[in-house]
C-alpha cells in the first residue's frame, strides 16, 4: 500500500512554521560569522593598527600590497605543497591501516588506539617535544648517529630545505589517526556480499581494495580532501609553535602570516585582506572539490 504524504497545504496547517525554529541559529550565524566576514572586509580597506582610534581608508590598497608581497605567494605555495603532501600521505597511510585492521589482525583495539592517539594530543603540548626531537642535538640525530647514519644527521628545523617537510611530517603523524578512523568507519559500511562475490570471482587483496573498497570510500576521501584543504589554509599551530614560520619564512603559511602581520606587526588591515583571500580560497576549493566528486560519482 502506498503511503500518501500530505499535500503542501496540509503540511502548512499541521506543522509549525520553520523560521522561529531556525531563528536562534540563524541569528547566531548571521550575527557572528557573516557579520565578522563583513567587518573583516571593512577592516581590509583600512590602514589600521588594531588599537588606535584613527584609521586611514586605503580602499583596495591592502589587496594590491598582498598581490605584490612575495611572502604572501611563498605562504600560498607552502600551503599548496603542504596540502598535496599531507593529504596524499595521510590518505595512503590511513587507508592502509584501516584495511589492515579490518582483517583478523591480533590486538586490533590496541593498534587502533595507537594510531588514533596523536589526534587527541594538543599541538601546543607536543611542540616542545618536536623542537627537541628535530634539533641538531636532538633524538632523531642521536638515533641516526647511533646506527651509523651520521651523514643523514641534520638540523632539520634550522635548514629551510628540511623545515617544511618536517612540519608536514609532524602533521601527518598527528592527523593520520583521524583519516584512519574515518576510512575504518567507511569500510565497515561496505556490503560484505560484494566483497565475497569479488573473492569468488578470483579477485586478490589488491584488486578488492582498488576496485571495490577504494571506490566505496570515495565520499570519505572527498570529505577528507575538503577538510584537509581547508585545514591546510588554516594551518597555524604546528608551524608557529615549532618554527615560528621560519627560518626565513621557510615554513610560513597563510595562517602564520596573518598572525605575523595582524598581531606582531600591527597591520590589522593588511591581515584582514589576507584573511579574505584565505576565505575565498577555502570556499572556492570546497566547491570545486564537491563538484568534481559529483562528476566522478555520475
Amino acid at each position, binding site marked *: 500500500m502506498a503511503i500518501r504524504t500530505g499535500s503542501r497545504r496540509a503540511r502548512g496547517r499541521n506543522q509549525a*512554521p520553520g*523560521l*522561529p525554529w531556525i*531563528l536562534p541559529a*540563524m*541569528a*547566531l550565524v*548571521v*550575527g*557572528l560569522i557573516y*557579520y*565578522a566576514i563583513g*567587518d573583516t572586509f*571593512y*577592516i581590509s580597506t*583600512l590602514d*589600521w*593598527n*588594531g*588599537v*588606535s*582610534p*584613527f*584609521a586611514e581608508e586605503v580602499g583596495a590598497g591592502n589587496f594590491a600590497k598582498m598581490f605584490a608581497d612575495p611572502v604572501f605567494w611563498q605562504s600560498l605555495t607552502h600551503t599548496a605543497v603542504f596540502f598535496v603532501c599531507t593529504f596524499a600521505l595521510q590518505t595512503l597511510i590511513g587507508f592502509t591501516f584501516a584495511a589492515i585492521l579490518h582483517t583478523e589482525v591480533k590486538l586490533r583495539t590496541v593498534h587502533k588506539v595507537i594510531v588514533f592517539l596523536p589526534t587527541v594530543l594538543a599541538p601546543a603540548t607536543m611542540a616542545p617535544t618536536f*623542537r627537541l626531537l*628535530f*634539533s*641538531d*642535538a636532538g633524538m632523531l640525530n642521536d638515533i641516526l648517529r647511533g646506527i651509523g647514519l651520521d651523514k643523514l644527521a641534520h*638540523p*632539520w*628545523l*634550522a*635548514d*629551510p630545505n628540511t*623545515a617544511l617537510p618536517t612540519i608536514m611530517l609532524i602533521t601527518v603523524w598527528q592527523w593520520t589517526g583521524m583519516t584512519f578512523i574515518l576510512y575504518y568507519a567507511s569500510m565497515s559500511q561496505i556490503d560484505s556480499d560484494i566483497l565475497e562475490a569479488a573473492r569468488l570471482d578470483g579477485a586478490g587483496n589488491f584488486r578488492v581494495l582498488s576496485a571495490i573498497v577504494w571506490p566505496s570510500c570515495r565520499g570519505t576521501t572527498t570529505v577528507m580532501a575538503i577538510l584537509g584543504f581547508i585545514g591546510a589554509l588554516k594551518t597555524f599551530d604546528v608551524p608557529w609553535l615549532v*618554527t*615560528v614560520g*621560519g*627560518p*626565513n*619564512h621557510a615554513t610560513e603559511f597563510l595562517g602564520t602570516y596573518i*598572525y*605575523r602581520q595582524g*598581531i*606582531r*606587526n*600591527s*597591520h590589522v588591515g593588511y591581515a584582514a585582506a589576507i584573511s579574505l583571500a584565505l576565505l575565498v580560497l577555502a570556499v572556492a576549493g570546497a566547491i570545486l572539490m564537491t563538484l568534481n566528486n559529483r562528476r566522478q560519482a555520475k
Partner: protein
Amino acid sequence: MTKKLKRTMAALAAAAVTAAGLTACAGPSGGTGAEDDVAPAGTDAEASIIWYGWTPGPPATDNYIKAFNEMYPNIKVEWKQVDIDGYNAAVRPAIASDSSPDVYQMSAGSANGGAVIFGDSALDLTNDVKNLLGDDWRSKFSAVAIDTMTVNDRLVALAAGMVYAGNLWINQDIFDKYGLTAPTTLDEWKTVCATLESNGVGCFVQGVAQGAFDIDTLHAIAEQVEPGWFDKALTGQAKWTDEQWVQTLELWKRLFDEGIMQDGAAGLMQYPEVNNAFLAQEYAMVMMGTWYTMYVQPETMKQAMEAAGVADPVPFTITPIMLPDLVGKGNTGHLFADPDYANGVSAKSKNVAAAKAFTLWYSARPEGQQAIADSLNLLPVLSGVTPNWDNIELVNPEVQESAVKDLFEVAESSTSQRFGGISADMNDALVVTAQSVATGQATPQQAAETLQSTADSL
C-alpha cells in the same frame, strides 16, 4: 502586516541587535578616560589594581609590589604575566575591554607592546611627572627612556629601567676549569671554542630563530665595522648596500662557517632553549644583554636554573664580556639601549589614581628605582640611583662586582637605541637578512640588496 512579513521583520531585528552588539566590540574607536590625580603616598584609601606585563615576573615582581606597599600599604597590586610572544595578542583586547588592566607594560619601537601602537590607549603622564619632579623633570631621566615613550607629544608610559645589548656572558667557572680567558678577537674565540668542544662543552650559543637577538648581534658587529653606521642606515642616511653592511653580514656568516655558532642555531629560540642550555651549563658563552646581570645573584640564578630544568642547582659564576673584535679595528665595547619595559596607565582604568601612584613610584620615585637597581635586572632610568652593592648578594663577589660595574659604566655611556628606531616591518626585514645569510640562502651582497629594496618600499 502579514504573518510572514512580521516573522521576517523579527528575524531581521534579532540579527540587527546581534550585529549592533558586536559592532561595539570591533573596529576603530576612540576613548581617553578620566585623568585623575595621583594617589598621595601613604593614603588610607584602599584600591586594587591589575598590572599586566611580560617581564620580569616573580620573584622580582613580588619584591617590587612589596616595596611599593611600604609607601602605599592600602593599594593592592595584582601582577598578571603574559608570555612575551603572546603579549601583543593578549593586551590588544584587554585594554579595549571594560575590564582593562589598570597598568600595562609597553616597550620601544618594534618590540612587543610597542608604545607607538599601544600608547593610544594609555593616559598622558606628563603632568603627573612634572608635578612630582618639577619643571626640569626631563633632565632627571635617561633621555632614551623618555623619547621612546613619548608618542605624539604624550608621555604614554614611564620606563622602568634600561637594558643594553651587544655584550656576551661567559660561564667563568667553565673558563677557569679549562684555563681559558675571555676571547678578544675572532682567532682567540675560535681557539676557545676548540678547547671547550674538545672537552665536550658547547662554546657559544645563540637562538637565531628568535630574530630580535639576531638584530642585536648584527648591530654589535656593525658597530665594530663603523661606530654609528647602523643608526645612520636605520634613519636613511646610509644605504644597506654600503660596504659596511655587506662586511657586517660577511662577519655574521663567518660565525656560522667557522664554528663559533653552534650547529642548528637557525632552528633554536633564544628563550627558552638557549637560555636553558646556558643555565644548564651545556654552553660556556651566550649572547645576552644587561638583563642577564640578575643572574649574578645566587637566589635568582638558582631559581632560573630550576626553571631551566636543572636538578639540585648550584649557582655558577657568570661574567659579562664584550663581543670579541671581529673586524680587527679595535672598535669594541659598543652597547645599545632601550627601556626594557615601561608601565602605562590604561585610559579605561577604574582606579586611575592608584594606577598612577604605582607607575610613578616605579619609575619616578627613588624608592621604586632603588628596588629596580638592586634587582640588577635593569639599569635605573632616574638619575642618581645606582645599585646598593652592600645589600646585594653575588655568587662570586670578587669576580662579578667589578665586572658588572665595568659593564654598567660602558652601558651608561651608550647613546644608541636598540629597537627604538626599528619599525616592525624593518625588524622583519632585518631578521630575514640575518636568517637568509645564516642558512646560506643568500650571499651577504644579495641579502643587503634585498634589505635595501625592502627599506625603500617602507
